[in-house]
């Protein structure tokens, strides 16, 4: 990754944070919102499978969003760093991922992140209600966005 890509990534992360904070109602359906910043971070982790870089990228993006609008400071930082690290580590270990495996990986990361977030924010929403009405629909919505992105801007 060269310096231009670094700057581009920082710019996109800032832009996505602004979009999430100010315009999330535009893509929200029945209060289901996909975490577009997490989607970007996971895609970047697959594109550049360096666990350390994904970890740093995830940690700083998470801490920024936590400080701006987070319920619990540190929650997004923890989730984004683990998701970025795990994705890059798996991708580097496997080398090549078939399209179906890639989508499964994305889905697992989005679902896992949502479940960890549920526990960290100490939400009293019943677990099953949370899984079926929040976590699963958000993850499916996120995978749909990734699918659209894969059509127009595929990553290998």
């Amino acid at each position, binding site marked *: 990754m060269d310096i231009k890509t670094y700057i581009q990534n920082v710019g996109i992360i800032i832009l996505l944070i602004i979009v999430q904070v100010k315009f999330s*109602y535009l893509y*929200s359906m029945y209060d289901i919102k996909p975490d577009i910043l997490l989607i970007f971070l996971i895609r970047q982790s697959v594109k550049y499978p360096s666990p350390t870089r994904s970890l740093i990228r995830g940690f700083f993006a998470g801490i920024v969003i936590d*400080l*701006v*609008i987070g319920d619990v400071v*540190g929650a997004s930082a*923890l989730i984004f760093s683990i998701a970025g690290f795990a994705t890059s580590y798996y991708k580097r270990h496997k080398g090549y991922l078939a399209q179906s495996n890639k989508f499964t990986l994305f889905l697992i990361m989005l679902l896992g992140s949502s479940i960890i977030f549920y526990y960290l924010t100490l*939400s009293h929403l019943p677990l099953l209600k949370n899984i079926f009405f929040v976590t699963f629909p958000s993850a499916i919505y996120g995978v749909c966005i990734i699918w659209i992105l894969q059509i127009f801007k595929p990553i290998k």
Partner: protein
Amino acid sequence: MNSHQKIKVIREWVYLGIAVITSVFLILFNNSSFNNTLSEIGLDAFSILSYDYFSLREKASLKDEIVQLKQKLVEISQDKKLYEGSFDENIRLRNLLSIELPESLSYVYAKVTGKPVSSLQNTLLINAGTEKNVMNGEMVISETGFVGVVNNAGKHLSKVTLISDPDNKIPVITEFGKIPGIMISLDKQTAEIHEITKSQTVEVGEKIFTSDFSKLYHPNLLIGEVISVSDSSATINKKVVIKYSTNFLEVKDVFIIHKKKE
């Protein structure tokens, strides 16, 4: 795997450990002054990006609104003159009965500039901060009712924790029977009122307000309306479910209730 690669992998896991420990540290000390200071810095930095640059159309609509408000002001000041006598009489009678007058309050207007980024979050961003004397713990209302409490006040922006946050336990009172209870949120639209016994009467459609039981919350702010009452629970208490009067995802303008300095 050679030794160089092994060291590289160990180093990566150490970095992950550091990131996890730092995050867990921040989570554990979520309401500490250190985290609040960090949040204030974050809000100040973000306020530069989210400054309200009014468009021409918005300016025009604001002009019309100002004219309408001025007309209303004239009407209200005429009404005030009519009722001034009654107001003085009310104060005199209250003094005679030794009833304490409520603390004088002022309202700070703010626009909602940020909404929860995920479905599990319960935080709003508003464009008023310490420069408008907004402080942590102050209550935020909209035209439809109680919205939340200021959690972090930056210079230009503040974070508001919504009443739908499940960690909140808000003392409430019913409209007709004046029955006290504790409200705990179920989701972003509904909440349950605890500690109302089966012998007490609560009706569907009855309004629910904040009570004066806690010093944290001002009394008589509308929270919502009862949508179901059930005696089927195994305890001595009723199961009362309410619907919030405010749709937190659609709220655009809010007021912060601010205590005037004496």
